[in-house]
């Protein structure tokens, strides 16, 4: 009885969560008459797959894609390198003020983005970075508190004897980080990389504030442009939305084991 109820609830809720995706997908491949048909069509009589290509050429999405890829690749690389370095520093050294600095690091997670938004804009403006991709890339090279926390938890679970043995063999701290811990924390790096990729790929407010020129736009900005340009072009909006969703969904699919384990790891191991 409870069993049936549980499954019933799960299936019903899954349908609720899936339905918007499904609806967007079929909206993208409907023909125009079917789009406005009432009652609505739940599967188009003839799927118009070319709608994706038509939508893609309504704006310079090639350029947007290139910009998005540049931002995502460069910032993910920076995030992985910097956060793992900092995490190693906190996990494997005793130094003056370590615990105080670590608490400071954790508390920065509480600061609302809105407070930093205006001064950061002014700062990047002074540096001449407005309307370039730099504000979206460079900060990733300076480590993120949440990722540092995650990676630190991971490193702390590696037996210290491994470090000691390497040190006996004459390895220095950098080599221990680079040769031993970086390979060992690969699952955690996949997790951090996935989360950062999604944040960077999905980011809308950053590009909105820092970029003015269409040639600098990222995909999310391009999609939002449809709202003003073609108010009624539902098909193209749906098509680009589907395209925009695909990379994070694929990435999530492959990384999901790490995400689940990582979430469990960070919560259980205080």
């Amino acid at each position: 009885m409870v069993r049936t109820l549980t499954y019933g609830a799960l299936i019903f809720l899954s349908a609720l969560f899936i339905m918007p995706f499904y609806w967007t997908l079929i909206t993208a491949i409907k023909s125009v008459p079917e789009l406005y048909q009432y009652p609505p069509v739940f599967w188009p009589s003839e799927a118009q797959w070319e709608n994706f290509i038509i939508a893609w050429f309504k704006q310079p999405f090639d350029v947007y894609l290139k910009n998005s890829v540049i931002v995502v690749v460069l910032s993910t690389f920076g995030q992985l390198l910097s956060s793992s370095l900092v995490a190693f520093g906190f996990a494997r050294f005793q130094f003056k003020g370590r615990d105080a600095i670590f608490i400071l690091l954790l508390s920065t997670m509480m600061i609302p983005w809105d407070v930093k938004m205006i001064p950061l804009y002014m700062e990047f403006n002074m540096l001449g970075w407005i309307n370039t991709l730099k504000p979206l890339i460079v900060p990733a090279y300076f480590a993120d508190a949440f990722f540092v926390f995650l990676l630190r938890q991971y490193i702390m679970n590696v037996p210290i004897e491994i470090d000691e043995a390497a040190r006996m063999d004459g390895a220095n701290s950098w080599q221990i980080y680079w040769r031993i811990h970086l390979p060992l924390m690969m699952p955690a790096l996949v997790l951090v990389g996935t989360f950062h990729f999604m944040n960077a790929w999905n980011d809308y407010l950053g590009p909105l504030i820092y970029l003015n020129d269409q040639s600098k736009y990222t995909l999310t900005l391009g999609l939002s442009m449809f709202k003003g340009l073609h108010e009624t072009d539902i098909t193209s909006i749906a098509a680009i939305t589907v395209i925009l969703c695909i990379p994070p969904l694929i990435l999530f699919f492959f990384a999901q084991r790490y995400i689940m384990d990582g979430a469990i790891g960070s919560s259980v191991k205080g």
Partner: protein
Amino acid sequence: MGTDPDSAVQRNRFFEKLTPYLFISPWILGFLFFTLGPLIFSLVMSFYDWPVVGERTFVGVDNYRVMLTEDPLFWDSLWVTIKFGLFFVPFNIILGLLLAVLLNQKVLGSGIFRTIFYLPSVISGVALVTIWAWIYSHEYGILNFLLGLAGIEGPNWLGDPSWSLLAIVVASLWGLGGTMLILLTGLQSIPKELYEAAKISGVPAWARLVFITIPMLSPMLLFTFITSIIAAFQQLTIALLLTGGGPLESTYFFAMYIYDNAFQYFEMGFAAANSWVMFLIILALSMLVMKSSSAWVYYEGEMKNKEQADG
């Protein structure tokens, strides 16, 4: 190392002392340039009339005075944000908990269900908005069609000020996968023996939920409580794109008020003052929740974790 000459030993010592700081230096620099610097900068700005280009003038607490006493939009947008939070925060936690409890049963394909519930959290806010705009559409929306099947005439969700905020709440709740995941991991760390012992003693299911699950989960609930409050206050993307703050400013969030003052009217000083007020409100609310937490949060693992950390 004992075989090294003295000076080299000293150099090594110095370098050894410096090494940890070198490792954490990226964060230290980032903290100074991208967090602490901007925070101080924005506090200073908030006491100035500070346009993006042109002369800035010191105005003392004038920005704060105007905001609190002369600008009705400040109070209106704050009220919209609070109303949103009053719906969003409890539903986000309760529904997240419900999903987590369902998934924590031994069900076939729990991995698939978990993935499905997490999917909306994976996509961009812009994509989420375009999806919901079409669902809510007054004439062609599937939501009103489904309501019609049930004999209910759906309202103009995004065009009617009495429904627009609720529409944004529902769209935001679609992304509760993150909350669900955190609560689920919390549930999985509760020892199974507790439930078995209770079951044997004949404790009914609802009582197990109330007297075992909720207390054992309370540290995670506290965490999601605070992050949900912060999320509610920072709500911007969805409202900006779905309703643009309308109709009749019924979805004009506090974050949008800040955004407009900064990037539509270029009143950087005034907007900085707005954002500091937001910061202080969030800080005060978080502290209030933290303070109340000693009454309702139960740290079973506190001692155990300490031992682990020391060992």
